[in-house]
């Protein structure tokens, strides 16, 4: 019989039983009528002919039944039968079913939740037409996942745009800028993007209302236009249908609204788009992201080759080397998700372990039950059920359980995703709006459930049916468990191994997180409140105007009740950025590559931040524009430039070719601070008094810090009032310094929490698993225990017997898991701070935890065995 015909026959059966039935009816009645017609032709009256034909044919119903049998029971029908029978079996054992379903729901639910996030953040296409043809063009020094943001320098961009053959269009844009929106409700800082005029058409997304940018817009005098996001238009402008042509104020400048984007469009994380014209002058050293849409038929590899050739031939700028231009063609999505990908994949891996453990547990449950069903299987196989038929029956049962578990898992995942999105560090996980349970997720869960059902069902199924085939009815009636214990032990050992790997991972993350939290940032963050604002160039055109604003604000802040000290700095440590740069040393040489952070601060800044002054003096109000230039250096600068010498009185300059008045005298030394994050190195810094800084670019972005004697949140209202007094048009961001510190540790904290949750679930499942195996072994060997005790064994001997068995399992589990953890924890390398992936104390602590909790789980059944009454035990069967 060919496979094809069998398949076709099944297919036909699957298409509907009723059609087969109809055809069979039609065929048989044709036969009878044709027969009757022949009879009628030989002279029999028509009525009589039909009657005779029917009689000659014999039992029609019996023939039909035989036809149905001959056709074979269809796959669908027999699966339905299997499922129905399985459902009946599961209903008969509600306790067993509940435990199996809950275990699987946990495993599948956790996997579904993580997959939902992975799917939304990493897998779903960006919401642009043919988004898979959009790529980032990058010519940066590269290295690491975005140590350097992908981008192209303006100079290279202009040249590339001229020469490029691979892309339909390339557009340059800025990412992460903010601007002040005023005149539409409270002043607010909103994310904005400056984009070249090709931007919207490269993404093939045009404004829903109005138009995009025209060629030439963005040039000076022609750049006062703006496109709004749909959300901003609704939130801030009440979806004003007459908004086109009206002006709004951004950073104090009037701009005409020319378009509203479709809902949901916010690439690259902006609410407002403004035109950008790239102009080259000697000071331009901007590097910005560039997006391009590949021409049809051009592959990313071809574009990569083209870009490499371009990089090869592009003349080098001053101080540049070839290595500074690593040609990369990167999928556009990576701009948003490259940083988050490793941790999401780590979660996916961890949660898969949880499911494997759940599978092992449920497989153990099924094995235990299979032993009890030996007799049933024996009877059925004696009655003629084939081996395959019985395996299929048991697989149908296990798949049924995992499907129910999967359905419950989707429910769990629904809450799990909500918890994940709520716990995820704000702003650290991109594309959160794409995360939802969609068709892909449901398909994933369905597939996962079926695979799970088969995986954990296969071994018990073959075991159980093996019984039926091998043992006679008489033997099967007696419970024999020897063979099962082997498999059950293997399952338990692997379960412990997996749990140990997860626990070790979580332990390492926890240790790393605690280390990170214990890092001294170089200042004292407690009881400090910060207020950050960006003064727009349009209103604050000169340095003196800005300084006046700062001085007034500082004065009013220091008068607030409970304020101990107030200060200001242009880029706050652990904040949004820093200004790095070079400098000159009088009578000396700056070590090659030695760059410093260059903050401008107010006189009492160090006191407000709690940064200890190590030598010399602080800045004072008299360190102003008319006084001689001064600077305070951080400890590492002093040590690097003047090792073993007194830094006070030495002179440095921020200018490349300093004139006599540009030299700054070092008047003090402070500690180094963590500028970029607790996990990063401290930055060497040279501080200047803000009163002596002339460039508005160094002054317009300023964070005011206030140290208070009362809880810092209590001064927030006062700080707001101060700002309203000084300039009511400025939006501010107020946050306690503690919360800024927490923001920088939010991601590791999230990773640690999540991994720890998975590890704890794994631990709980494993403990339940090992308890189950031992409890079952005790129950099965009750008779043996009875015999032993009747023959004089002490209860301590029995206890020892079972604990020895448990110890063997635990030792094997720990050994395997330890080896696995040793091999696998290196994937955590990039998440760990000052902890090696093979940290011995962590490994030891985790292993000990697992040993102790497993022993505790074993002790309960072992004690039960110990207390067994020999008479009861012997009567057990």
């Amino acid at each position, binding site marked *: *019989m*060919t496979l*094809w*015909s*069998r398949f076709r*026959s099944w297919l036909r059966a699957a298409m509907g039983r009723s059609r087969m039935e109809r*055809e*069979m009816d*039609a*065929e*048989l009645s*044709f*036969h009878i*009528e*044709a*027969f009757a*017609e022949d009879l009628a032709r030989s002279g029999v009256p028509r009525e009589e002919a039909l009657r005779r034909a029917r009689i*000659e*044919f*014999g*039992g*029609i119903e*019996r*023939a039909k039944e*035989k*036809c149905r*049998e*001959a*056709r*074979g029971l269809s796959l669908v029908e027999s699966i339905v039968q299997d499922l129905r029978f399985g459902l009946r079996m599961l209903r008969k054992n509600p306790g067993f079913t509940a435990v199996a379903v809950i275990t699987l729901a946990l495993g599948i639910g956790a996997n579904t939740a993580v997959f939902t996030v992975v799917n939304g953040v990493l897998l779903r296409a960006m919401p642009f037409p043919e988004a898979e043809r959009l790529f980032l063009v990058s010519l940066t020094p590269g290295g690491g996942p975005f140590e350097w943001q992908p981008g192209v320098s303006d100079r290279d961009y202009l040249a590339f745009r001229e020469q490029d053959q691979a892309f339909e269009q390339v557009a340059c844009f800025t990412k992460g800028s903010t601007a002040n929106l005023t005149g539409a409700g409270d002043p607010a800082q909103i994310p904005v993007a400056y984009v070249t005029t090709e931007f919207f058409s490269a993404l093939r997304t045009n404004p829903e209302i109005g138009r995009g940018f025209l060629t030439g817009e963005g040039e000076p005098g022609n750049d006062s236009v703006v496109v709004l996001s749909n959300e901003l238009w609704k939130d801030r402008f009440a979806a004003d249908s007459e908004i086109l042509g009206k002006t709004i104020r951004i950073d104090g400048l009037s701009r005409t609204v020319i378009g509203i984007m479709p809902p949901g469009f916010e690439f690259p994380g902006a609410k407002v788009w403004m035109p950008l014209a790239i102009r080259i002058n000697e000071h331009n050293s901007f590097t910005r992201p560039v997006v391009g849409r590949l021409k049809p038929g051009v592959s990313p590899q071809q574009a990569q080759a083209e870009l490499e050739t371009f990089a090869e031939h592009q003349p080098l700028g001053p101080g540049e080397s070839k290595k500074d231009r690593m040609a990369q063609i990167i999928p556009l999505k990576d701009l948003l998700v490259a940083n988050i990908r490793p941790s999401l994949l780590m979660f996916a891996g961890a949660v898969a372990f949880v499911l494997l453990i759940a599978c092992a547990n449920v497989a153990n449950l099924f094995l235990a039950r299979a032993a009890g069903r030996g007799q049933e299987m024996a009877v059925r196989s004696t009655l003629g059920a084939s081996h395959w038929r019985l395996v299929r029956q048991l697989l149908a049962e296990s798949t049924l359980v995992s499907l129910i578990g999967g359905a419950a898992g989707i429910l769990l995942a629904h809450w799990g995703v909500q918890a994940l999105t709520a716990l995820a560090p704000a702003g650290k996980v991109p594309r959160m709006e794409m995360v939802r349970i969609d068709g892909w997720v449901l398909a994933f869960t369905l597939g996962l459930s079926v695979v799970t059902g088969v995986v954990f069902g296969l071994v018990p199924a073959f075991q159980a049916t093996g019984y039926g085939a091998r043992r006679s009815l008489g033997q099967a009636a007696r419970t024999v468990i020897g063979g099962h214990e082997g498999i059950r032990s293997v399952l338990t050992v692997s379960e412990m191994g997996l749990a140990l790997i997860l626990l070790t991972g979580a332990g390492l993350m926890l240790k790393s997180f605690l280390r990170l939290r214990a890092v001294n940032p170089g200042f004292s963050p407690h009881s400090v409140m910060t207020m950050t604002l960006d003064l727009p160039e349009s209103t604050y055109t000169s340095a003196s105007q800005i300084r006046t604003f700062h001085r007034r604000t500082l004065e009013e802040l220091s008068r607030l009740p409970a304020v101990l000290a107030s200060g200001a700095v242009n880029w706050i440590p652990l904040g949004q950025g820093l200004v790095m740069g070079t400098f000159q040393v009088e009578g000396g040489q700056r070590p090659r590559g030695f760059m410093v952070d260059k903050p401008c601060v107010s006189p009492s800044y160090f006191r407000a931040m709690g940064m200890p002054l190590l030598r010399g003096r602080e800045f004072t109000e008299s360190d102003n524009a008319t006084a001689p230039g001064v600077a305070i250096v951080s400890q590492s600068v002093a040590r690097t430039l003047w090792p073993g010498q007194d830094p006070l009185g030495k002179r440095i300059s921020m200018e490349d070719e300093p004139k006599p008045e540009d030299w700054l005298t070092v008047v003090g030394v402070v500690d180094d601070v963590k500028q970029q994050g607790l996990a990063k190195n401290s930055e060497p810094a040279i501080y200047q008094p803000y009163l002596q800084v002339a460039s508005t670019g160094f002054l317009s972005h300023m964070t005011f810090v206030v140290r208070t004697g009362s809880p810092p949140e209590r001064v927030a209202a006062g700080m707001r009032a101060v700002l309203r007094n000084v300039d009511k048009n400025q939006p501010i961001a107020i946050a306690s310094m503690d919360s800024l510190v927490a923001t920088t540790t939010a991601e590791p904290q999230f990773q640690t929490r999540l991994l720890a949750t998975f590890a704890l679930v794994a631990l709980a499942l494993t403990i339940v698993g090992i308890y189950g195996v031992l409890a079952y072994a005790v129950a099965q060997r009750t008779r043996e225990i009875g015999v032993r005790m009747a023959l004089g064994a002490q209860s301590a001997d029995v206890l020892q017997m079972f604990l020895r068995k448990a110890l063997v399992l635990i030792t094997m589990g720990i050994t395997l898991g330890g080896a696995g953890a040793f091999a696998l924890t290196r994937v955590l390398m990039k998440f760990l701070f000052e902890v090696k992936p093979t940290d011995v104390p962590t490994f030891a602590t985790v292993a000990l935890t697992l040993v102790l909790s497993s022993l505790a789980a074993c002790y309960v059944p072992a004690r039960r065995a110990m207390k067994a009454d020999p008479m009861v035990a012997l009567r057990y069967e």
Partner: protein
Amino acid sequence: MDQPMELLQGTLDMLILKAVSLGPLHGYGVLLRVQQISKDRLEIQQGSLYPALYRLEHQGWITSEWGESENKRRAKYYRLTAAGKRKLQTEAEKWNRMADVIAGILRSTPEEV
């Protein structure tokens, strides 16, 4: 005319294959064809004809499609497949060999034993 004989066990399938190998037939046609070529000496139980047809179709030796009968009615026609053709050939050979052997046995005389 001889009294029609009952079919030997297991020969119905072969007869059906032979009948449809001569041209597509509906179920009733198979019945008539077998009676005709056996000159009415074989009798097929009508009730067992259809299960046999369904079985042969399920095994892929014949295939069916709906067509129009001589008297302009819709009827299901069966046709031999390539696999069915091979099956018929091997069955026929087996049958002939068996018939020879049996005939040989029945012809044997006491001297030969």
